[in-house]
């Protein structure tokens, strides 16, 4: 049937990838998955289509999902990320495995919200079954190594801890509702909103100072000492010292240089409970890597396990690299005797060459022109 105008378009946020773009994406993905494999992470796959009850049970947050109904009327959703799917998988099918489990993935996720990328490739890891600080450090270090081995320069990682914010909110004994207000505004980076909330609420001066300072607190270990001066709370102390230890281990991994400690990173309405981090690259307006510890998510799936992980938004990195000009083939084979041409092509392919077979009878000049236009370096007549 003749296609209408709609039939020639792709939906908003969806992208075709042409051969050169695909070659680049595959290369980046392969490099990263190979690195994950050297760190003993094993690749898995989960379905693109899950029950919404698995990927996002919170109905207020469902608006980013692509949703469908199955024949029984249950709600299905395209995965917007991998972490809940992997929690489901581990909780149902890998309980017998010896923890810690190291799993990785590389596939597309779907979000019906951002205008630009609605389907994009993510690569990431999950480290399940360890609450040790070194597990956090391993995951952060691997995220940094991932960008480093792709030869991306000038990237930066910021490292924070959900427990410090949660502990301070507890310790400062804020009036009801204020914590939620500040959390929401901090997640949206609405500093003006935080300021006006803090000033409206007639808080003690020390509380005001801390709340106004927290979103801006970033740097090296000295900021942790400052936090320790604010409170005796054991939860805050544990979180702060945990973060310090992760930061120090990063030096042992040789990846501390691009890292800043940052207590202003906080993701609202998320499953993160401990160390969290974001990776930034100049020229990309949003974080290209996100991750952290989420120790309560697995309990939601009936299998109480600590876990940490990260995902890299591979699609957003494509624009950082020049067009990949790998050419279509290494050699063009032509000739009048078709069976001989076929045999020669198979022989060269057996040697690992990328071989293009001329289709139909062509002259030497035609073959030469064809090879030049297609960027094929060699031409062989049989």
């Amino acid at each position, binding site marked *: 049937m003749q296609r209408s105008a709609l039939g020639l378009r792709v939906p908003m946020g969806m992208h075709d990838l042409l051969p050169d773009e695909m070659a680049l994406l595959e290369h980046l993905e392969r490099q990263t998955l190979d690195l994950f494999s050297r760190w003993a992470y094993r690749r898995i796959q989960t379905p693109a289509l899950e029950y919404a009850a698995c990927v996002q049970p919170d109905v207020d947050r469902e608006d980013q999902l692509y949703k469908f109904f199955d024949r029984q009327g249950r709600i299905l959703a395209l995965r917007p990320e991998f972490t809940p799917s992997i929690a489901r998988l581990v909780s149902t099918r890998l309980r017998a495995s010896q923890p810690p489990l190291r799993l990785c993935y590389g596939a597309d996720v779907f979000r019906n919200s951002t205008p630009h990328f609605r389907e994009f490739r993510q690569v990431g890891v999950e480290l399940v079954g360890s609450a040790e600080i070194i597990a956090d450090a391993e995951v952060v270090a691997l995220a940094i190594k991932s960008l480093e081995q792709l*030869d991306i*320069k*000038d990237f*930066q990682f*910021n490292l924070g801890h959900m427990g410090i914010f949660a502990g301070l909110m507890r310790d400062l004994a804020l009036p009801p509702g204020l914590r939620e207000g500040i959390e929401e505004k901090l997640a*949206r*980076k*609405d*500093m*003006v*909103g935080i*300021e*006006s909330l803090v000033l*409206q609420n007639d808080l003690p001066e020390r509380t005001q100072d801390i709340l106004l300072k927290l979103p*801006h607190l*970033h740097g090296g270990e000295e900021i942790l000492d400052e936090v320790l001066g604010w409170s005796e709370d054991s939860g805050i102390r544990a979180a702060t010292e945990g973060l310090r230890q992760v930061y120090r281990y990063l030096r042992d991994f040789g990846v501390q240089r691009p890292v*800043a400690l*940052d207590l202003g990173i906080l993701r609202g309405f998320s499953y993160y409970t401990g160390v969290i981090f*974001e990776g*930034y*690259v*100049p*020229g*990309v*307006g*949003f*974080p290209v890597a996100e991750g952290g510890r989420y120790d309560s998510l697995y309990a939601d799936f009936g299998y109480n396990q600590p876990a940490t992980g990260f995902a890299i938004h591979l699609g957003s990195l494509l624009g*950082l*690299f*020049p*067009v*990949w*000009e*790998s050419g279509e083939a290494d050699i063009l084979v032509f000739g009048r005797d078709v069976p001989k041409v076929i045999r020669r092509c198979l022989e060269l392919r057996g040697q690992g060459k990328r071989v293009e077979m001329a289709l139909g009878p062509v002259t030497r000049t035609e073959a030469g022109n064809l090879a030049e236009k297609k960027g094929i370096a060699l031409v062989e007549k049989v």
Partner: protein
Amino acid sequence: MKAGEQIEGLRREKDVKRNLLTIALPKGKLLPESLALLSGVGLDCDEVREDSRKLLFEIPEGEAQVIICRPTDIPTYVEYGAADVGFVGKDTLLEENKDVAELLDLRYGFCRFVVAMPAGKTPPRLADGGYDLSVLNHQRVATKFPRVAQTFFSDLGMQVTPIKLHGNIELAPRVGLAEMIVDIVSTGATLRQNKLAEVAPILEATTRMVANRVSLRMKYERIQNLADALREQVQRGTAARLSDLPGGKGERV
């Protein structure tokens, strides 16, 4: 792959730009005060003019460049990181609902969002002196700000139909396109001229300094220094300006 050289070239270009701060300013009524503020903190904006054809102005000694954009586009430039920081009205920020960090209330460009309707058709009064908006259910609201209007009425549990217009909102109720309007007012003169009466305040807005989330991390010192200098400048200027403002600062969202 011959791409190695290209990558190197790209990188050198990026190194040069690494420290460059791109500032997006809104054309129109907020521009003069925006330029004055920036000049006040040492970024010489004498060359920046709205009436020239140029849209991009370099300020080499400040390692900065200024771009002039439509006010409603500023959140987009900043969200994508094409501009590191921008000056934009809170009204636009709420309507565009983009993912940007809001750093500072610059306190100029004060305006209020209100619901207004023809003076003869206002709803009955409530005991507290306000209008009983619930009788306005299922009516049409003409506005440049459908998101703000929708959110306000939805929060009251009401269902209204926003009609998006791009200008001369006051006309809509006079010719029956809508029963009421949601618009920004600064003095109220336009409302009175069109025989419209304010029936409910929605929120107050001033100009804000916003920043891209990643720029705020990667160029933290530069952006925060600029924000601190601007804050000082604004606080110094506030006393002088307070007399012009019909209200104070602060917002009701």
